[in-house]
């Protein structure tokens, strides 16, 4: 009876929460890596209307559901990439050190074939972020990979809001060096953050004062001078919401000193629940990160592309994990997103992280960092049916994603993988312009669209992340 109620509740919830497409499927006899409840051999997973409704043996197939025989194959939660720039038609608005008001949700490119490539690597959700040109960049968008649907359908509207911060060389090069715009140094980066938080607090107070004064004036039948309106400020509204804990901060960072700096700043302003992105030197301050409850989202082994990224180690993930930091492994790349399972496997190879913990780094941990862990990241009854089926254990170098479901809808199937998955063909474009070569770790990076802002000297040393 309890199971039935859960199933009914799940179906009702699925039909009311959003307009995202929902599917039903019965996956039979898989090795199910639940992440939260162990690895279950010869197990069925039942998906109804986009939700996982049953996990068990020899389940019966509900009417209308697809059936997939997964004998000998591995089922895991859809992989979640906590740092991505795919599916966007713009990444940086680099004209001001603080652009909290811009939203990646405004520039979702639902036709980007990178989404399909990500599905081919078992990735069902990506966190589409603003770039790292600005100290406080734009608001992120958490996307479900419903390739073939409109942008509004990709957007997880009920996911918590997020925002990109950036420390170190990127904002100081884009704004400070040679252009005489604060920040020029890491000290300046800190001051930009503090000044804007202080301005936001002042704005919040002034808005509240105005609302009170207006009420009083109306109550007094508009006698006396009307209060001067304090207009809504799109930028400060967002900063107030950060300070009020309504927006999750994801901060581009590399060095341990700047990571420590931001933790101090956030402690001063009472900000909790934030994630350091990249964080190559996070291993140096792992205990402090754990103590602050800060999260990290890192590359497995990518460094030395600029000065601040030389002091790095592929043991970063293992050290962070050892100290209890909720850590994820991300792509920041339209290429790397296709094999995040192998990126996670490197944490097993370098530092001996358990297979389960390595898989957590691409499933439940990024879900926690994005505030969507109640919905995705594990295989549990009641959760969204974002699933990927693998030919072998997903941490094996031989593993290939066979099928990827998003909300129970099959969005990738290796047995039915058309040669042309372009969603759009322009009436007046050239074929050669549509043939993309994915060139490793240079696509969809944090610094897209900012080369115009560099001096010639800086361009000679430009890099992407």
């Amino acid at each position, binding site marked *: 009876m309890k199971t039935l109620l859960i199933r009914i509740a799940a179906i009702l919830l699925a039909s009311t929460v959003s307009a995202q497409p929902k599917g039903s499927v019965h996956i039979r006899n898989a090795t199910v890596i639940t992440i939260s409840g162990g690895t279950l051999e010869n197990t069925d997973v039942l998906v109804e209307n986009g939700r996982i409704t049953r996990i068990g043996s020899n389940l019966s197939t509900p009417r209308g559901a697809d059936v997939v025989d997964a004998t000998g194959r591995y089922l895991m939660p859809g992989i979640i990439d906590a740092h991505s720039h795919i599916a966007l038609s713009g990444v940086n*608005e680099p*004209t*001001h050190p603080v*652009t909290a008001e811009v*939203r990646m949700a405004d520039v979702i490119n639902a036709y980007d074939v990178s989404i399909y490539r990500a599905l081919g690597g078992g990735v069902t959700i990506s966190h589409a972020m603003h770039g790292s040109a600005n100290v406080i960049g734009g608001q992120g968008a958490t996307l479900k990979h419903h390739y073939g649907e*409109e942008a509004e359908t990709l957007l997880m509207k009920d996911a918590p809001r997020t925002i990109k911060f950036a420390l170190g060389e990127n904002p100081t090069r884009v704004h400070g060096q040679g252009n005489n*715009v604060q920040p020029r140094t890491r000290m300046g980066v800190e001051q930009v953050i503090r000044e804007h938080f202080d301005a936001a607090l002042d704005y919040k107070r002034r808005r509240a004062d105005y609302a009170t004064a207006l009420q009083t004036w109306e109550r007094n039948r508009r006698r006396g001078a009307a209060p001067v309106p304090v*207009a809504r400020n799109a930028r400060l509204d967002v900063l107030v919401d950060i300070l009020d804990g309504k927006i999750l901060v994801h901060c581009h960072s590399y060095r341990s000193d700047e990571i420590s700096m931001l933790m101090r700043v956030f402690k001063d302003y009472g900000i909790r629940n934030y994630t350091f992105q990249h964080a190559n030197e996070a291993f140096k301050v792992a205990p402090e990160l754990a103590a602050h409850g800060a999260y990290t989202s890192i590359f497995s082994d990518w460094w030395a592309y600029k000065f601040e990224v030389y002091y790095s180690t592929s043991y970063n993930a293992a050290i962070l994990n050892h100290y209890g930091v909720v850590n994820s492994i991300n792509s920041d790349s339209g290429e790397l997103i296709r094999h995040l399972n192998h990126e996670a496997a490197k944490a097993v190879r370098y530092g001996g992280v358990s297979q389960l913990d390595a898989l957590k780094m691409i499933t439940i941990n990024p879900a926690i960092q994005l505030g969507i862990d109640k919905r995705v990241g594990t295989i549990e009854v009641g959760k969204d049916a974002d699933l990927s089926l693998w030919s072998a254990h997903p941490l094996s170098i031989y593993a290939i994603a066979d099928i990827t479901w998003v909300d129970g809808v099959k969005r990738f199937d290796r047995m039915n993988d058309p040669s042309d998955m*372009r969603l759009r063909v322009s*009436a007046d474009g050239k074929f050669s312009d549509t043939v993309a070569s994915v060139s490793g770790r240079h696509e969809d990076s944090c610094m897209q669209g900012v080369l115009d802002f560099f001096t010639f000297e800086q361009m000679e040393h430009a890099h992407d992340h």
Partner: protein
Amino acid sequence: MKHIIGSAVVWVLAGAAAHLHGQAVPAQAFTRVTLHRADGTTVPQATIVWRNGLFEAAGPNTAVPFDARVIDGGDSLHVYPGLLDGMAEWGTPEPPRPPERPERTVEVTNERAGILPERDVAALIRKEAPEFGAARSVGFTLMAIAPRGPLLPGRVSVFHVRGEMTPSSLYRPNIGIKATLTPSRIVYPTTIMGVMATYRQLFYDARALQAHQASGSANAPRDASLEALFPIADRTSAFHFVADDRESIRRMFSLSDELGFNTILVSGKEAHTQAAELARRKVPVLVSFALPAKPDTSAGRTDEESAWKSRQVQAWTASVRNIRSLLDAGVLVGYASNGLKPSDLKKNVDVLLSQGGLTEAEIVRIMTLNTATILGLNAITGDVRAGNLADMVVTTAPMTRTSVRTVYTVTAGDLTEIKATPAAPGGRGRMTE
């Protein structure tokens, strides 16, 4: 024909003289013409009478006033309502060219950011721009013009098309504000996401200023840009929103929902992808007749390229049938040149007729009554009927025929003869005035 032209000149001069002496302006008339109404019906052997810039009568059995100067169509001339251009940019200055690198300043001025909704286009128009004469030769008699530029380049005003622009050419000032999603590329906003945020902030600021001024405070500041947005925020006027691709049109919807403004879609080259939504929202479209070049249909070098080329042909067909799709969905469609040269109009109309699924009657309606309706001018123009502005175009054959030639345009009663230059060997000649 020589006789007709001679008489026309005489009575135009006579009319001018009568006006100078304060006498009633004599009527003018076409007789024995085929009248094509905006609804697609035709009236053979029609008589059309106008006076003081307005139609007095039009129909099959219309009496010609005793004082009328008459042009006899001899059963060979065709009269259409004057064409309307719902969004032209002729004669307006080029927007400033963005520098190679956006300016590194945090001090952003409205002008550099492209926030100029208060800008009056009448003050900017280069009166002798050749496109005005060319447009009149094609048959345009009324034209909505707005400045060029990013984001919010200025107000939309309606002008009579009489060749050279004069102060009296302005017919209806400030019927709306031109809006785009184009970033300035000079200062913030340099991206679409910045443009979206800028719209939000402008509406927040406009509403706060409106509240301040409405409170009666003597200290309420003035701001021309924000004040220009008041009627948009109040929904008493609309954005004439230029957007072509599917994503831009959806962004327009999104802003409209969030900020609460009415909109007319301008250009809309991919509007067919949103036809049902445009119809549901009752958003009219001033559509561009600009069309993509027909794709190369030869086989590709690979199977993938061949398949892609096949899809490109489908995409081209969808583009050419853009207007058909909008009409079928029930969208009100008018016309906007939005940069399409008058000289390119005819060949594109030919494609729309032959492959776009449109009829001549539909094209005429789009370019006349529908455009007038969208601009809020249908009570005074868009068709040949008593009381309307005497705007019409007279041709030697139905307008969409290959061999057609414009003979006259009449703009608010002012008749201009369009002369044909001698045709080059093998050519079809061209129009001059």
